[in-house]
């Protein structure tokens, strides 16, 4: 990240007419300030003007955050509404079970992160690491500051611990275990899902708040990715019937707004099931629709990645006598997916934010739960709305920013953009 900033400022320097700083910065702080901020009269005026505007915004923001904001809408909300929804108690799932599921998920994520460590790219600098951890850390601290006991903080630290444990485990495994790591991770994901839903998937319909957002988002990401890859490959297939089906699916879905798909899921999906069959609840239906929606976009992203692999790669595979399946799996897909990472992560961040649209079909994910809290007698009609939306916005930001940072780390590790 710091490298990016460095590149940008280096390009912009001529615009300001400021000279490049001497290597080693012999002039000290005063010289740096003078050369960059108070070079001449125009420069000084601009510095003071923007300095004043920035200071005003910073002051107002800090004053709101720490003085005027009435955060009791969050911590007395109660906070558990934002986190797991108002009906979570009715599922009978204990918080121990839920945290066990989160820990298993973090451990699995750690394994995945550790695997990406077969580094091809350059090592990350310390400042890049700090920038990577800083933002998410700030968000998590903000969320945790709304809790009234130390327990959630301890549990969160524990979750980070499991993440690190997973990445260490991934580096240590050898032999047969390593070869089956994909299956093991799949089993762990299943176990995590089992814990979180209390081993009864129908409990999902009682989820709300952040938990619902995350379950829908991760289910959508996890399911739309394979669908997208298969559809992208199908769209390039030379078989007669497969290509039109893939093109039809992708173009049909991409031509329809997600909201209308979500409404279709709630009101029209019943027609697709045979009479008498049990139709899934509203949340699984929403997951199906989000998955179908995202799958079409993932397919186009992956198709772009597939096209970026030079034809010489396929020819080299053919010349070795490899089968088309082996060429796709061992040669084309690894390179195509690596090249798709930036766009894929963008798609998944977009999916996570799209989960907030569930509020429109009456589901109480994080945004929807605000209405429930605001309707409580102690908060209603007292102007608590900004705090509630600010909090939910902060939670979304923390999630999306963490994803984007994790993706950046992955890109660096895999050396995307370098060959």
């Amino acid at each position, binding site marked *: 990240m710091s490298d990016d900033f460095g590149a940008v400022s280096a390009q912009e320097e001529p615009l300001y007419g400021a000279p490049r700083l001497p290597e080693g910065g012999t002039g000290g702080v005063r010289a740096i300030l003078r050369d960059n901020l108070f070079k001449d009269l125009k420069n000084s005026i601009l510095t003071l003007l923007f300095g004043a505007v920035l200071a005003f915004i910073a002051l107002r923001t800090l004053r709101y955050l720490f003085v005027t904001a009435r955060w009791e809408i969050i911590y007395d909300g109660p906070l558990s509404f934002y986190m797991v929804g108002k009906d979570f108690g009715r599922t009978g799932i204990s918080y121990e079970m839920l945290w066990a599921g989160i820990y298993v998920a973090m451990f699995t994520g750690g394994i995945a992160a550790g695997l990406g460590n077969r580094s*091809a790219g350059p090592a990350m600098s310390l400042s890049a690491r700090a920038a990577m951890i800083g933002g998410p850390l700030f968000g998590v601290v903000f969320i945790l500051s709304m809790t009234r006991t130390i327990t959630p903080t301890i549990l969160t630290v524990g979750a980070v611990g499991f993440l690190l444990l997973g990445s260490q485990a991934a580096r240590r495994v050898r032999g047969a275990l390593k070869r089956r790591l994909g299956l093991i991770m799949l089993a762990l994901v299943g176990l995590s899902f089992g814990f979180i839903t209390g081993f009864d998937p129908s409990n999902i319909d009682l989820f709300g708040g952040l938990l619902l957002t995350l379950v829908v988002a991760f289910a959508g990401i996890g399911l739309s990715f394979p669908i997208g890859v298969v559809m992208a490959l199908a769209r390039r297939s030379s078989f007669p019937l497969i290509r039109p089906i893939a093109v039809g699916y992708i173009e049909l879905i991409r031509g329809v707004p997600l909201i209308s798909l979500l409404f279709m899921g709630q009101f029209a999906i019943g027609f697709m099931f045979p009479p008498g069959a049990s139709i899934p609840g509203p949340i699984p239906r929403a997951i199906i629709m989000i998955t179908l929606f995202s799958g079409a976009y993932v397919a186009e992203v992956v198709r772009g990645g597939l096209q970026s692999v*030079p034809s*010489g*790669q396929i*020819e*080299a595979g*053919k*010349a*070795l*006598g*490899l*089968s088309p399946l*082996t060429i796709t799996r*061992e*040669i084309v897909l*690894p*390179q195509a997916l*690596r090249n798709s990472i930036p766009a894929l992560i963008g798609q998944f961040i977009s999916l996570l934010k799209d989960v907030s649209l569930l509020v429109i079909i009456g589901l109480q994910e994080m945004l929807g739960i605000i209405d429930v809290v605001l309707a409580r007698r102690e908060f209603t009609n007292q102007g608590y709305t900004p705090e509630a939306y600010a909090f939910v916005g902060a939670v979304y930001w923390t999630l999306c920013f963490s994803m984007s940072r994790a993706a950046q780390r992955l890109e660096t590790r895999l050396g995307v953009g*370098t*060959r």
Partner: protein
Amino acid sequence: MTDETSNPTPSTASTPTSSGAVMSDATVAGGTGEPMITLTDVDKLFGDFQALKGINLVVGKQEVVVVIGPSGSGKSTLIRCVNHLEKHTSGTIIVDGTELTADIRNIQECRRECGMVFQSFNLFPHMTVLDNITLGPRRVRKKPKAQAEAEAMELLEMVKIPEQARKLPGALSGGQQQRVAIARALAMQPKVMLFDEPTSALDPEMVKEVLDAMQSLAESGMTMIVVTHEMGFARAVADRVAFMADGEIVEVGTPEHFFTNPQEERTKLFLSQIL
């Protein structure tokens, strides 16, 4: 391509020559005398453009045939047809006694016998050098990993870069990459090696290391078809040189006859331009 139009003029390559036999017949195998690759009346059309016109060529076992000619003359298309990277429009191609058909099993079987080295190396950038070389033997020949890696190391010794085994191709110089590509093709233990302008994408100082590797391969008795602009290599290593122009084999001969006493006007013109 129909038979009427496939061979409007008799191929100059098979034209009977004077009793001095300055020019050899393209349809008589060199090397040990047994044919390894036989092309008969091979045509290749790209849309309306005819890239190959009635090619007749027999490459014998252990023979090295160097194909030269101006760009666009069909040299690359010719060797790409031999391992079916391009599908020939008509005619027959027989590799080691098996005719190439459209059947995918047949094609894969043929490709396993024909190692190919490309102008642009085409190494797999996401795999280490060792994985590049062992992919084919492990996936196609079903060799155990340890055996495949041991053999790959021997091949890397042969092309003189065993110390690069664990690196990614991107960290290697062009010449080193091309030598890895040669080792990768050899790892399949092919009966024939096809080289498609293997030194054209290299910096001048790296050409020699690749040509040296190819020469030692030729001396070990490998059957080779080499498309190249390296006339020095053609003189020193080729058993026969084939000159192509406009999709036809114009002239075939031993290097000394070919370079000192070419028979065809087009050959003389080409040689006068490059020598």
